[in-house]
């Protein structure tokens, strides 16, 4: 069995394990902790160089409230939601359909098409910055939520299709053939047979794409410039004034911005039940 249960190892090994896991965890979480500590300092601490030491004063509540008072954090937050949720819905539903077609139907272009989806993921999106911004301006999508949704969906669908195609491909093909013999139409096979079986995959993919899009800073900065459309990742920047950096406020806002993806992970946890196909075929 792999991994071997820790109980079956030597006692020295177990001891080392018990010490090293918390250490690794601490190192792993150190940046997060640093941001949290910054978010409860007063501005004076940062200006005087007390970056990592004990805060001279705890201003937790005050800092977090200032974020809401001095920026349009609520608007940014809703912008993020308005961008992220439709993007997830569009990419995942397109990916389910494309993945179904690529995995179930044997047509000549299936493999080249699939490779195109895969290859699309290898293009670094930074090199697309200028053309995409240009395109957005020309199509009047610059600085609109619709624009962000469309471009995000376009960039995410490639990866999503790769993901869904492989999942659907792993389903027993007998199920589809059996449904065909019973006269279930192709569209209904997709809807009543395939979709229920890939639900765990859809849940996992949705969380993943949600996180990707929510955390996106690049396109948010490239494709927006107004307060009314900025998602939270880009909006946080405005807390830094023109002349002063207020990292304690930026930290507080960042932590709040990170809550939805984390919450999403926990909320969808129960949908990640693998092995739904168990019992379909022996």
């Amino acid at each position, binding site marked *: 069995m792999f991994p071997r249960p820790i109980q079956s190892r030597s006692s020295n090994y177990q001891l080392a394990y018990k010490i090293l896991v918390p250490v690794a965890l601490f190192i792993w979480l150190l940046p997060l902790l640093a941001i949290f500590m910054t978010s409860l300092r007063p501005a004076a601490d940062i200006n005087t160089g007390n970056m990592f030491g004990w805060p001279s004063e705890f201003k937790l509540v005050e800092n977090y409230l200032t974020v809401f008072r001095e920026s349009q954090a609520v608007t940014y937050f809703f912008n993020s939601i308005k961008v992220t949720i439709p993007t997830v819905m569009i990419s995942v539903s397109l990916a389910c359909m494309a993945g179904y077609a690529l995995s179930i139907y044997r047509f000549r272009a299936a493999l080249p098409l699939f490779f195109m989806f895969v290859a699309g993921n290898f293009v670094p999106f930074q090199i697309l910055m200028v053309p995409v911004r240009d395109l957005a301006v020309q199509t009047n999508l610059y600085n609109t939520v619709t624009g962000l949704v469309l471009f995000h969906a376009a960039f995410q669908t490639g990866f999503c299709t790769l993901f869904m195609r492989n999942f659907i491909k792993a389903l*027993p093909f007998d199920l589809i*053939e*059996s*449904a065909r*013999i*019973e*006269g279930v139409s192709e569209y*209904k096979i997709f809807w009543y047979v395939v979709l229920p079986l890939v639900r765990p995959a859809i849940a996992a993919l949705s969380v993943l794409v949600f996180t990707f899009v929510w955390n996106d800073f690049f396109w948010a900065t490239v494709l927006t410039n107004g307060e009314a459309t900025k998602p939270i990742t880009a909006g946080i920047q405005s807390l830094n004034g023109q002349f002063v950096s207020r990292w304690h406020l930026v930290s507080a806002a960042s932590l709040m911005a990170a809550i939805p993806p984390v919450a999403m992970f926990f909320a969808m946890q129960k949908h990640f039940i693998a092995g739904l196909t168990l019992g379909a075929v022996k």
Partner: protein
Amino acid sequence: MAQLQLNNIVKRFGPVEVLKQINLHIQDGEFVVFVGPSGCGKSTLLRIIAGLETQTSGEVRIGERDVSDLAPSDRGIAMVFQSYALYPHLSVRGNISLGLKQAKTPQNIIDERVEYAANMLALTDLLERKPAELSGGQRQRVAIGRAIVREPDVFLFDEPLSNLDAALRSSVRHDLAKLHKNLNATMVYVTHDQVEAMTLADRIVVMAGGVIQQVGSPRELYEDPQNRFVAGFIGSPKMNFVPAIDGPNGSEIAAEGEASSYELGLRPEHLSLRDADHPEGEPGVVQFSEYLGSESFSLVALDKGHQVLVRHSPHEIWNIDQPVKVIQIRDGYRFDRDGKRI
């Protein structure tokens, strides 16, 4: 119910011809079993009948209709898969009725047919369960139930018992035989297990290399095989094949390396063992003996260099390395160099 006709079916995968000119006529209500070693094309042929695979050329007729180019669902067939192919997210009832629901069958007819099938297959108490909560045999029955409610002209079975353990296999086999009797349906069944073929079939189609080797009742195939392949494939343990020549008293086994004019096929039960001082028979030495309770088998290395398996009564005891004589208690089958029966 209907007859099924295959006319000149050819199937090529690229340059490989997996089915060569298959012609077969299956009568209404007949239970026909396709047997053959793996890769002989029997599953491909079944899938062509089902419409899951397209034939390169040829014609499939069910009843009076040419169904060669019809979709699987329009052919009037139902298929039971080796893997059962049950929908894991649907209950037994949902699995059995999905096809009917999609065909917009009125609910009262769906209920009626589901109940009929469930009664016949003893599934009534399991209707609300999911496939994961069923045993292998129960899943198999659900898959059969799903076929029954479609009221097809032809039932197709693709190795339906090979995922079951031996004890269950024989009981489901009996159920299938009973089902065939009750429904009086045309059934086509693919298997590599000759016991299934022998027990279930009205007629067996033996296939090898994409060609039908012989079609006939189990008894015909066993007692009158037309070629060496069928003779070797049907019967367990296998028929013995030894080179032979015509001698003064009929066939005589040729020694290894000696010229022979044909091959002699001898089933283990057509041979018998005698003590070494017996006046007739081929001398040899016992290599090993297998005691199976109701019968025994001994492998004998003949002095002429060949090995033959002999079936004998479990009360006869032959020891390893014991010199014996093998006598023929029935004439063997003669096959020419191409494997054809002479």
